[in-house]
């Protein structure tokens, strides 16, 4: 509303965030865990003077750099790009609250890049002690960058006492911080092992070496899985009431939770009976199955973690329709169209007759011809509903959700969406505006499906 709304047909702009975020986390956790893996294992290989393990680790370091420094880093920037486009008000808010958190993070990014390149390109040329030290600098910097970004993402779910104090640290060390650091750290251990298995299963022909790799990375993976679960429990315990309710109410989320649970059990079992007890199981097929299950669990977890924030983007601060929670009463009094710079400009350009003394006269909007009312309703839909619903077709399309609804039902939904479902934001405009939206919704709601028999006369 403060910004132009980006209409992405079918998907809805915020879905792009979800897509890119998932594409990113699947690698960024490896960027942390893999760094730790390389640091620990190179120290071990130097200590045990295991030349062939060192050779493998060098190969792995190259794979690691190609994936994390390029894809991982750029998809990370990509998330930032998309949140600015699809969720500008929340991004503005987060950056105002945490710019120095990001600035600190940036220092560690630079450390990561420099150390990663030196670690790989000076392999064999630095003495063992310096080489492992550089590996540890990478691992340390990567983990701290995880902690820093987790403070900010956890804040979105539960800002804690920041809401009163607006204090950086109160926001950073929010109730969700510790649980999420646990699960993300665990996730890093776990994913790193899965990447190592995948890489080794294809690249290492010597079975003794493969067994060593399988055995060495099994414990961190199991530990990681335990940390994920512990963090997950903490996450649940410290969820705000609305998020717990969403988890209980939404069937998609229930399915997702069940899926995550099943996948986690499967991954844990495969790890335990596979690499931990029987390192010899590590074949390409096994590694692929493990990897795919792990990524699926991760993606589902990420999806749920995001979804339970509804109707907020930042809990109790920014609502899913790009308005600040504190603005809602003001918008109800002054009008949504009048308060949103881009909408007001559009109305003024399109319907100058509705402008009186430089302001929108809402009564006049309802005197416009029907098709113009529908047109304005469509704009209201774009700005206040398209965050979560496609209009006619696509992701959670509103028209299909309202199939067969009576006019009164539609009117209620437009006037008090938050009563219909607590995970929808409240209507942030005047009754006249809600009437415009209603006109639009009526125009797109399909009829009750034909041919259904309920015992009535044919």
């Amino acid at each position, binding site marked *: 509303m403060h910004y132009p709304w*980006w209409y*992405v047909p079918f998907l809805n702009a915020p879905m792009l965030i979800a897509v890119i975020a998932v594409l990113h986390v699947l690698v960024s956790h490896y960027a942390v865990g893999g760094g730790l893996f390389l640091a620990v294992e190179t120290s071990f290989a130097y200590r045990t003077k295991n030349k062939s393990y060192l050779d493998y680790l060098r190969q792995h370091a190259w794979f690691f750099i190609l994936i994390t420094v390029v894809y991982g880093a750029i998809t990370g920037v990509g998330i930032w*790009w998309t949140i600015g*486009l699809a969720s500008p008000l929340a991004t503005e808010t987060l950056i105002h609250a945490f710019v*120095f958190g990001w*600035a600190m993070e940036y220092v*560690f990014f630079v450390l990561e*890049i420099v150390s990663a390149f030196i670690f790989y390109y000076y392999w064999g040329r630095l003495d063992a002690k310096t080489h492992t030290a550089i590996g540890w600098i990478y691992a340390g910097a990567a983990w701290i960058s995880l902690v820093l970004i987790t403070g900010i993402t956890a804040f979105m779910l539960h800002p804690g006492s920041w809401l009163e104090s607006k204090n950086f*640290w109160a926001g950073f060390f929010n109730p969700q911080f510790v649980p999420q650091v646990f699960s993300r750290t665990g996730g890093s251990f776990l994913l790193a092992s899965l990447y190592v298995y995948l890489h080794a299963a294809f690249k290492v022909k010597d079975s003794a070496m493969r067994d060593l790799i399988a055995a060495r990375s099994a414990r961190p993976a199991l530990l990681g899985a335990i940390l994920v679960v512990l963090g997950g429990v903490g996450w649940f315990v410290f969820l705000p009431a609305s998020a717990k309710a969403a988890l209980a109410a939404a069937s998609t989320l229930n399915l997702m939770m069940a899926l995550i649970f099943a996948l986690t059990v499967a991954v844990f079992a495969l790890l335990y009976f596979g690499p931990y007890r029987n390192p010899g199981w590590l074949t390409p097929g096994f590694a692929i199955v493990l990897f795919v299950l792990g990524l699926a669990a991760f993606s589902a977890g990420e999806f749920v973690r995001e979804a339970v924030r509804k109707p907020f983007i930042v809990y109790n601060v920014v609502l899913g329709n790009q308005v600040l929670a504190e603005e809602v009463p003001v918008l109800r009094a002054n009008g949504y169209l009048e308060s949103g*710079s881009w909408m007001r400009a559009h109305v003024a350009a399109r319907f100058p007759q509705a402008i009186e003394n430089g302001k929108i006269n809402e009564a006049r909007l309802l005197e416009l011809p029907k098709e113009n009312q529908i047109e304005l309703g469509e704009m209201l839909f774009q700005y206040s509903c398209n965050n979560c619903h496609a209009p006619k077709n696509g992701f959670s399309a509103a028209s299909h959700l309202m199939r067969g609804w009576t006019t009164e039902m539609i009117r209620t939904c437009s006037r008090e969406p938050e009563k219909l479902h607590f995970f929808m934001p409240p209507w942030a405009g005047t009754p006249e505006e809600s009437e415009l939206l209603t006109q639009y919704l009526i125009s797109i709601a399909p009829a009750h499906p034909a041919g259904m028999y309920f015992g009535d006369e044919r």
Partner: protein
Amino acid sequence: MNPSDLIGPSSSLGSPAPYWFLVFFKILGFVLHIIPMSLWYAGIILALLVRWKGGENGRIWSGRLMKQMPLLVALGVNFGIVPLLFTQVSYYQVFYPATILMAWFWLSVILLLTLAYYGVYIYAYGLKEGNSGLTPFRQAAAWIAAIFFIVIGFLFSNAFSLMTNLGGWPALAEKTGEAGAVLGTALNTGDSTLWARWLMMFGLALTTTGAYAYVDAGVFGRKESEKYRLWAGGFALKIYTLGAVWFALFGSWYVFGTWQEEVKATMFAMPLGILTVLTAVSPGLVWFCLWFFRKSVSKRAAFFVALTQLVVLSLNAVSRQIVQNLELGKFLDVTAEPVKMQLSPIVLFLLLFVFGIGVVVWMVRKVIAVETRPAAG
């Protein structure tokens, strides 16, 4: 309609630090960004052309630059984050609308960059295997990377010129709109500032590439033959001359042809007139250094070239910031945002910043120790 009606309210959270502090890091970050950025922007295409037509020494130069390119891209992208972060703190009211208007193009930067970056790796990997390594596939990858980087530069120039072209917003929003929302398919191509600026920035990138050819030969390439280093001195001068002429040409178009009266009135008057003149003539200083030292490529001379080019880039960065503020001045005073200081995070950031520099210096010294060690080990 008055375009300033399109500017949303300012954030109730206030500015987390005084404007001067934020803009200092924004400018510092941009100077750090533009150095490696220039090398991939103008450098990759040049490296490919020179490899093709530049003789034996040209091939050495081209190979040296392209081997460094993976690191240069990694660093340059990272250094870009700083100015973008501070842009989003102080200029959010214009940055978000501008990028949303061109959303698909702006988002495509990410895809183009990923592909271009892998292209660089594919090529650089081939270089390791000598001449036979550069298969047609690897060469094609590098050409694609070169073109993508130039396209990305074009998109950046779009975003940053659209950010101050508020007068163009309403028409773009209507033209690419859908029920009052926008489709994100606009570009700022109707604004001549974009074209002048894009071409000017490319010229500036050429000068940096020229200066870097010299610095590389004088500092990092000390193991190359004397003959190569001498060639590099002459080559650097040629490229710099080309870049400086290009920069002067399109810079003049940019300044005289696209600046609005308010901007001219301030930038041509005292005291800022001095800055404008210095920004315009500063490449001459580097050119002189390159000309003077062209026959004796040494570490010391390289130091002078690097330092003077840094001055050129810093002057540009400061000037563009002032011009940006002047252009926005009609609509918005970015310096007037109330400050709600976040003192302890700032202090911690500064401490970590110094700590980070310390660790980087430590690591780089270890590398230098390896590089300068006699070849016995």
